[in-house]
């Protein structure tokens, strides 16, 4: 009798505990969403401001107090920045794309070759050499940049050419070799043996089997290289002095159309240019989001 009487009370207690947990869970969840939303808004405000400003009139920019929205939505700003005037953006986009194309060829070719050797070939001192590769990743660029600058400008006279900005990409870089090698290691070794039995040479093994299978990681590398070249400011700053040869980053850094003598630059146009120059990466990110994040994670976590 006593035992049967206990049953309902116990189950009520359990249900109460359960509801309390659910309420607490719900509250925690609501708090999480609130923090995330507020954070997301704060994070996006500069972006939104950039876009809104790019659509304003010159008058809006100098008005105090500042208005959030443009009085007149100037979509024309984008056309003006991109195509009109003595220094339209498209010229600098074309310049930058030239560098991008050669950099991509260099990066993909050289790093794939080197990583292939580290991942799929067996030779003496391979693992020692790989440690050397990893060690060079730790060396900061600033101790090498002054002699490299002297080499490119004084010895080779490559100033005002794109050679200093592209040629180094043809020699591989430690983190890219690391990224590709880690990926190539995951391709089953049986494939190599099978290919060898079928009479594949090493070159054929590389070109016909490993490279196609490594396509996803090569895509990641290509995206990061694009990002690197597009954003590079230091390189062009050192080697390119001719305004007609500027990259987008340089052009944007020196954007000077001013409203009047000693006044504000045309921030409406400058922001339109900034939006445009951020667009390629934004689009690439939306298309290749998964690969992009993978790349950040692999190189971020593992080095």
């Amino acid at each position: 009798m006593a035992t049967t009487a206990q049953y309902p009370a116990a189950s009520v207690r359990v249900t109460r505990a359960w509801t309390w947990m659910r309420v607490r869970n719900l509250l925690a969840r609501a708090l999480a969403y609130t923090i995330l939303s507020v954070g997301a808004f704060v994070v996006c405000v500069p972006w939104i401001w950039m876009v809104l400003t790019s659509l304003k009139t010159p008058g809006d920019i100098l008005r105090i107090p500042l208005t959030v929205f443009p009085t007149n939505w100037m979509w024309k700003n984008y056309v003006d920045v991109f195509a009109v005037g003595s220094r339209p953006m498209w010229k600098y986009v074309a310049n930058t794309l030239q560098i991008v194309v050669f950099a991509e060829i260099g990066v993909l070719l050289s790093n794939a070759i080197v990583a292939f050797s580290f991942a799929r070939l067996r030779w003496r001192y391979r693992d020692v050499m790989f440690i050397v590769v990893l060690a060079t990743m730790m060396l900061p660029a600033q101790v090498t940049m002054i002699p490299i600058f002297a080499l490119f400008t004084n010895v080779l006279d490559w100033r005002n050419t794109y050679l200093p900005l592209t040629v180094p990409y043809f020699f591989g870089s430690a983190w890219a070799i690391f990224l590709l090698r880690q990926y190539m290691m995951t391709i089953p070794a049986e494939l190599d043996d099978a290919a060898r039995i079928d009479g594949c040479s090493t070159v054929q093994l590389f070109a016909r089997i490993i490279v196609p299978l490594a396509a996803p990681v090569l895509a990641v590398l290509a995206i990061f290289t694009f990002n690197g070249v597009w954003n590079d400011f230091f390189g062009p700053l050192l080697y390119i002095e001719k305004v007609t040869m500027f990259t987008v980053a340089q052009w944007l850094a020196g954007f000077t159309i001013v409203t009047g003598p000693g006044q504000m630059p045309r921030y409406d146009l400058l922001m339109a240019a900034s939006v445009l120059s951020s667009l390629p990466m934004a689009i690439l990110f939306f298309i290749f989001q998964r690969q992009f994040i993978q790349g950040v994670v692999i190189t971020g976590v593992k080095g």
Partner: protein
Amino acid sequence: MADATATIAMAPRLRASARKELMRDLEGWLWISPWLLGMLLFIIGPMIISFYWSFTNYQMVLPPKWVGLRNYADMLQDPLIAKSLINTFYFAFVSVPLGLFLGLLLALIVNQNVRGISFWRTVYYLPAITAVVAYAQLWRYILHREWGALNNFLLTFGIIGPNWFSPKWVIPAFIMMSLWTVGGSMIINLAGLQSIPTEMYDAAKVDGAAGFRLLRHITLPMMSPIIFYNLVMGIIAAMQSFTSFFVLLSDLGYTIQAPPGEIGLIFMVYLYRNAFWEFRMGYGSAMAWVLFVIILVMTLLVFRSSSSWVHYAGESRS
């Protein structure tokens, strides 16, 4: 007799296999030759040369002239070296830990079975993929004393915003800016959080642990290698900041890309000014080596201290 024939028969085969091995080694080295060449041309060679130049007076017109430790001694006397170093340390040591903390916090929240992870990831990562120069130009405008959005926003609360490009406020302004790219740190931390085996949490929950104790005893220890790695890399990167400082603080102009002045001067910008603006290559090389040593020492310190708080899975504690 039988043994002798066996060795005779084997000798050519051995030689053949040794040759094959040699070919294999050669092939391996051949495939890495682009990188080997690059390392000699762009890393080892330049490092040796810049080390030599750091003891010379070299302005690119005349050949380098040996001056011994003069450049290093001059650096001790140069007030801008001290100033730029202080600014650099101030920036790196506040922005990196703060960014790491925020990145981890956001990742922890997103990891709580929140819906639409990819949406949050994208939103938070957006500022990190803005073109670097565009980002600098945007902030240059936002921080403008009179027409900038920030001071106008503060004004609606009756606060008169400071001149963000004054000596007192310029580094805090850059620290604030750097926090907007916290998305990168969030993504890495999120991946780390998702790689923690759920069994660990299950086991701990069976043992009666919950909430904060799970965080303290499972999440943080498991995440410590990632936090540690981010700390080291973040500090190294922050010490070498250049572009945003250069673009934000220099005068706009197409042809004269003069480096910025003394306000908000950081080490790399001062290095640029010496080496590539005034062509004091010897002094610039000495500065580069000092920065290298500082980064090296700091990295070693972080590594040294790591054993006491970083936990690697599979490593036993004694």
